């Protein structure tokens, strides 16, 4: 038994730690004002460091990193409060585009890909209903609407789930394809999601990947990023309560603050162990197990982030500290693919 990082893992972690050094709040606020709400130079830098390629198989020109390696990167990105949508526009597209000619541009960072899996009124359901794929003599066209396409405001390529004869399949759709109507809107982590309407959008053959199994892996990455983010908020808050003085002493000297920090510490340690459990312990009902752990980690991460805001006082409620940005990213991740209630319900059914 050994929980130490191996050589590759240490290398990936160090790469991310270097990458997130330039990611302070001011850089984040500047990036959000750029077209698409995203700093493409940093995205390219991330790609050059191999952080997208790691999620693709070696046979596809990727680095073929393990799920654990990828999760450690997700955690380090969370710990660094990275503003890049690695999970939703890096990891997930790299998985979904396995074997596709579109993969190369995604891996080298020249093409930003966004995944259109959500539909209005269907909450966290992942089977496609509102976008239909119609196969005819002249080829296949997509009709319908997707919503909550993360970084859809910036992406050049969309990976769209559609209903083809009752089955959910995936298509790669470049942004400039005729018949796409893209409406971007700002969401909680400061990025631009989009609602996309498809009007007889011509597409090629479906992708080979399965949406459901790739989403399972992406949920593990969401867990890992939440764990990293919660760690960071805890660390920043611990430093703050040691430094902030009121009533003639650091507020961390008050017992109520000490006990609150211990509660947060215990939750963060539990979250870390929950992540290792999902990575290291094989379970028969893997999907349900991932859902259960995502529900658990989401609840604890939200609690930890809310406490980080509370203990920072007024400063915690501003956009000037990383604290609020961490809370907002956790809120997004906690609902990505399933919210804590629906994820826990899925787990409880089989547990």
């Amino acid at each position, binding site marked *: 038994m050994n929980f130490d990082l191996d050589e590759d893992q240490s290398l990936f972690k160090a790469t991310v730690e270097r990458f997130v050094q330039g990611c302070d709040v001011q850089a984040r606020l500047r990036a959000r004002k750029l077209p698409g709400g995203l700093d493409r130079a940093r995205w390219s830098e991330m790609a050059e460091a191999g952080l997208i390629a790691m999620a693709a198989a070696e046979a596809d020109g990727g680095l073929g990193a393990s799920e654990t390696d990828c999760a450690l990167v997700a955690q380090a990105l969370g710990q660094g409060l990275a503003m890049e949508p690695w999970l939703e526009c890096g990891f997930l597209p790299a998985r979904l585009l396995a074997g596709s000619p579109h993969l190369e541009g995604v891996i080298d960072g020249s093409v930003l890909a966004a995944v259109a899996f959500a539909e209005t009124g*269907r*909450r*966290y359901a992942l089977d496609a209903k509102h976008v239909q794929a119609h196969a005819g003599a002249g080829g296949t066209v997509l009709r319908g609407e997707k919503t909550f396409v993360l970084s859809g405001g910036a992406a050049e390529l969309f990976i769209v789930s559609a209903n083809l004869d009752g089955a959910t399949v995936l298509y790669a759709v470049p942004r400039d394809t005729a018949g796409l109507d893209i409406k971007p809107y700002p969401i909680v982590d*400061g990025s631009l999601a989009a609602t996309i309407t498809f009007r007889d959008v011509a597409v090629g053959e479906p992708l080979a990947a399965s949406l459901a199994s790739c989403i399972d892996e992406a949920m593990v990455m969401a867990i890992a990023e939440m764990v990293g983010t919660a760690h960071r908020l805890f660390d920043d808050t611990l430093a703050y309560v040691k430094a902030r003085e009121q009533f003639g002493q650091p507020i961390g000297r008050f017992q109520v603050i000490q006990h609150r920090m211990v509660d947060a510490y215990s939750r963060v340690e539990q979250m870390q162990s929950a992540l290792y459990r999902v990575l290291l312990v094989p379970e028969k009902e893997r999907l349900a197990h991932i859902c259960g752990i995502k529900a658990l980690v989401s609840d604890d991460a939200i609690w930890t982030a809310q406490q980080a805001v509370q203990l920072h*006082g*007024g400063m915690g409620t501003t956009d000037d500290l990383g604290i609020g*940005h961490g*809370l907002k990213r956790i809120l997004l991740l906690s609902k990505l693919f399933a919210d804590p209630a*629906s994820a826990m319900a899925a787990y409880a059914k089989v547990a």
Partner: protein
Amino acid sequence: MDIAFTDEDLAFRDEVRAFLDEKLNPRLREGSAQTPSVFTEPDITREWQAILNEKGWLATSWPKEDGGPGWSVVQKYLFEKECAIAGAPSVPILGLKLVGPVICRFGTPAQKAHFLPRILSGEDYWCQGYSEPGSGSDLASLKTRAERVGDKYIVNGSKIWTTHAHHANWIFALVRTNPEAKKQEGISFLLIPMEQPGVTVNPIMTMANDHEVNATFFDNAESDASNLIGEEGQGWTIAKFLLENERGGGCAAPGLLAQLDRIEDYARAEPSGVNGPMIHDAGFAQRLARLRLEAQAFEVTELRILAEMIKGRPAGPQTSLVKLVSSNLRQSIQMLSVDLFGYEGLQLPTARPLYGNMAPEPIGSNEAQVAMPTYLNGRAYTIFGGSDEVQKTIIAKQVLGL
């Protein structure tokens, strides 16, 4: 024991209800519903203020001789309750509910004659200068200095979390007039005009994307000595009066219950994505039910305090309990609202306001659009006006004798 209001009070309630029904136009209702904060912007509040002022129902917490409506504590409560249920906008509370009662209680006849009518008319818009970067929960450590020079005070220092300072032409501030005296004893309550070269207001953006609070800097700012309220060194006493006056006779529960009603209405329409609407989702329905029971119990807690006030007893440290319970209940309700709307609850517009012709188009409903801004803005409820930690210390010491 009896929880009913008198027939007279109920007749008053009906009068208020009819008035609100008539006067709350769609613009005011929308402005109120689509504001993430307890502080509504002046474009909405000024219109509502003028309507209430014309009726004589504006300064509900002022004595009749100073321009108040002369209501009993029950009438005040019923008015607040009906406003909350009807979804009326808030009035500019910093002038009307905070500094106004202070001027009524501690002001000289000249100060009353000058300031009170201008608060009623809306000519003056007030902000509050209490907290400082180094003085939050430990307010009495504040450092902003006001030095008497001739017939003026010269003010130097800074205040933070000055809500709506960017709209205000006056600030009421706690300042240190005697640096030699013990902490609380050197503090005075000074009114300072904002429109002068020595005052600078810098915006602070919140994580909800609201510009609501500011940092306000005083660099040799001036105020006439006649703008001091009470005596030098009396500031702490006045500040405590202001806080207790603000909290006494609270009426938070009806608004919370109205919010839960709205959530339930939406939950009947909002698809669960699995099986029927969200109201049929067992987990969601139980959270809603639990919060409703808590809000109903809290309503009775507020009525118990009201009953004491009817007998002429001051509200006392129980107001800390009210602040504690209502803040946490409100935050739970705000989280429920975010959770109700699924992915649509994650939209967070950068533009403001969220009402009127310039409002960004919502993804889904208006209620979904305002859910996340309201939740994020609401994290401040357990921090401002004395944090949860401060309230608990007050209760531990003053109520429990620990």
